[in-house]
């Protein structure tokens, strides 16, 4: 079975620096995923150049099948030499995950990558060898669904040094924190953002080093089929509804008329649920065999708000995602936590009530919302497809 590799990364710049001295490159090539996290010597522009070059060289060469030795030698001869220290230096971690979970991990002077399985960090014996005077550590492992692969720069390990923590966070404590905060339903973005927020907080919002976290979560693919609005032509109704019913994944219907169409064609009763009342979001419905039935434009608008808040990592986002049970929150929860991608099937039949007379006719509110949600999901590492009828 092909696994889905959900990836996410983020950085916090050293206090007062415009550029980050860490760099992450993620490449999806065929069914394989390549991730490189490089940490350039020093900080600012110089470190940024070193990290960018290292990550680019490493990901390009390694993804093309070059050996680690070739990569190290190329880097040593390519990287600009630091005037002060007379060395060309950038640490890096390289992760190559195949579609079946087989993973190749190469590290050079970066903190150990953490593999989290069922909330516990795995101890991986690493093979050590020297290439061009550089000590390389390498390991192989087969990742399983719901495993996390978390790699980070030394900014994480040193977080809080001299401030909240005398000796910094330390690797063993970082691992302990990752284990403590483990939740099966967490996304790669969530874990990455959580670690960065913790570092930022430990540095008391003035990081003493560039801090970067890259996270992969191994997931079983689960695509959401999201039917939004009735098709322009009523002839397409049956075709789309049948595709929805027969879809192998999560099934979502957005829109009052749309849900009536699904109910009519599938000959399944549509029930309006009043078990959660929210002043802002219309109630949800229920059709047997469909995972979620919601109202259309208002719910999509609210869902987009939640996704944006989640993406920005704003405070309380988790509450928004997990505790609320209105249609918009449920839709966002499914798209973020449950699904690895989404297929939006958007009907273009126009509901006059949703048009703003001040806007050009072409800016259909519903289509705009769907494309905004799709963009947001792509940024969160999901595969998104949109079909119009």
């Amino acid at each position: 079975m092909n696994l889905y590799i959900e990836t996410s990364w983020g950085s916090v710049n050293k206090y007062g620096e415009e550029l980050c001295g860490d760099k992450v490159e993620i490449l999806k090539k065929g069914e394989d995923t390549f991730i490189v996290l490089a940490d350039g010597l020093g900080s600012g522009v110089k470190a940024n150049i070193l990290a960018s070059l290292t990550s680019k060289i490493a990901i390009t060469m390694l993804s093309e099948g070059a050996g680690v030795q070739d990569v190290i030698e190329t880097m040593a001869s390519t990287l600009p030499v630091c005037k002060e220290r007379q060395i060309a230096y950038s640490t890096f971690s390289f992760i190559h995950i195949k579609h079946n979970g087989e993973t190749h991990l190469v590290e050079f002077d970066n903190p150990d990558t953490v593999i989290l399985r069922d909330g516990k960090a795995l101890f991986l014996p690493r093979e050590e060898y020297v290439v061009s005077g550089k000590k390389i550590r390498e390991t192989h492992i087969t990742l399983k669904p719901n495993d996390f692969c978390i790699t980070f720069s030394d900014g994480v390990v040193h977080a809080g040094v001299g401030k909240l923590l005398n000796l910094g966070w330390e690797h063993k404590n970082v691992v302990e924190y990752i284990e403590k905060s483990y939740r099966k339903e967490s996304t790669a973005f969530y874990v990455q953002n959580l670690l960065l927020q913790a570092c930022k907080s430990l540095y008391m919002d003035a990081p003493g080093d560039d801090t970067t976290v890259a996270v992969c979560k191994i997931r079983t693919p689960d695509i959401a089929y999201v039917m939004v609005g009735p098709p322009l032509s009523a002839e397409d109704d049956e075709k789309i509804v049948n595709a929805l019913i027969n879809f192998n994944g999560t099934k979502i219907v957005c829109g009052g008329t749309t849900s009536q169409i699904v109910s009519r064609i599938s000959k399944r009763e549509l029930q309006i649920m009043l078990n959660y009342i929210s002043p802002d979001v219309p109630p949800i419905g229920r059709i047997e065999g469909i995972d979620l039935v919601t109202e259309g434009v208002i719910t999509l608008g609210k869902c987009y708000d939640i996704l944006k808040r989640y993406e920005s990592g704003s405070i309380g986002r988790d509450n928004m995602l997990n505790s609320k049970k209105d249609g918009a929150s449920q839709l966002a929860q499914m798209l973020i936590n449950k699904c690895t991608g989404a297929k939006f099937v958007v009907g273009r039949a126009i509901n006059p009530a949703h048009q703003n007379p001040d806007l050009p006719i072409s800016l259909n509110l519903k289509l705009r919302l769907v494309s905004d949600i799709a963009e947001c999901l792509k940024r969160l590492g999901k595969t998104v497809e949109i079909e119009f009828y």
Partner: protein
Amino acid sequence: MPYKTMQIKLLNPSKSKRDLLEDAIDRYSTAFEILLREIKSILPAVLPPKTELLKLMDKNFFKCVSNLGVEPFKDALKIDLARLLAVYFSKKSSYPVTRTFDEDIMALLDGEEKISKPKLDAAFEKYQKKRPLLFCRFDEKRDYSIFQSEKGTYFAKLYLFNRKNAQNSKRYAVFPLDAAEWQQKFLNDMKSGICTPKSAELIQKKDEFYLNIRFWYPALPKHHFSAYIGIVRGINSDLYYAVSLKSGEIISTGSINVNNIYGLNKFHSLSNEIIRLAKENKAYIIMENLSTSNDNLKMKGLKVPLSVGDYNKIAFLVSYKAELAGLEIAFVSANSIFYRCTRCGNFKRANRFLKDKFICTMCGHSDNLEEIGSSNLAKTLITYKNNKIPVYYKAEENSIVFRLDILDYEVVCAKSLSAANEFCERLKNHIALNINNFSKHQQFTAKKLLGENAFSKINFIEIK
């Protein structure tokens, strides 16, 4: 009603006066124990109201101690007995014994029953034990009073004798008092009418005699407060505080430490510091209620400077000092304050990190544990005010039944998407009409709902 107790020494009483005092205390202690045994046979099974209890101690009741000359202490004995019996009934422990006599010891030793060592120890411990002599009122004609001579010396006038034993036809004796600066403050307050002297106790410590006088100070009118100050037990300091504005914004935090002072004096110093901080910040004091729940601050390998008992003592001192200073104080549950994230509200034991640090496992927020605890405590009342009120509803075929238990209000609305809005409107009308009939607790809820946007203050819960 705030009371302050002042201890003042009787200044070098002569040998004869010393004997008089010792004799008075002895007579009082003996009489008290005899009366305590006497009343046991007439006591009902449950504690009667104070008036009923005092009625039991009539003229005849005191006949058994008529030979002790305790007439001047009659009222004091009654009150003292009532107090002790109230404690006995509340604790439901064995019947109290305050003093043992020769006969008691002999009876124990000569008895046929085998006697345990603790029982014998207790009997010896209370052998001829002296009880503080209570003067139940400040009065120039009876009990006790204090006056100042022309030279400025203070004297205590203590009524110690009955008519029969009167010394030079006087039932009282006068003792000069050793009034230092601290005592003078109370006495000056008494003279200028700021405080009122109430009861007093005569005690003997080694060879010295002291009067413990209780003064009643009227509470100051409550200050308008603009912030909350939360006081928690510290880890690296005795106490830790955080000041929160009414909006919930923390404006200052810090530790409260007292060095080189121990025991009760330390607690007084800490409580004075709390009062000073509260005054400075015009803050409402919020302290942990550690008598009903624990704050779970202590953990293996971590030594906390103040025990729960110490904190409770400080809390007691702060409570009356706050009243005297016109400050408000609340004791709130300490449950979870050290484990709840101040940023996202996530509560997990796992949030605690390295004994004295906190890193939220939900949002990554980190801080010192003391800061987290005190901030949470300072914001408790704000959180409480912002808590939503549960309204239960049940969807029926054509209607939805809403029920608000706190106000005992139930209403049926037509089944539509605006049913909740309709409920809110009808609830507002109901509150406006009946607010004067609500209990205090109900009025709090009602006022919360009367403000703008009542909808946001309600948590709708479906009954299935």
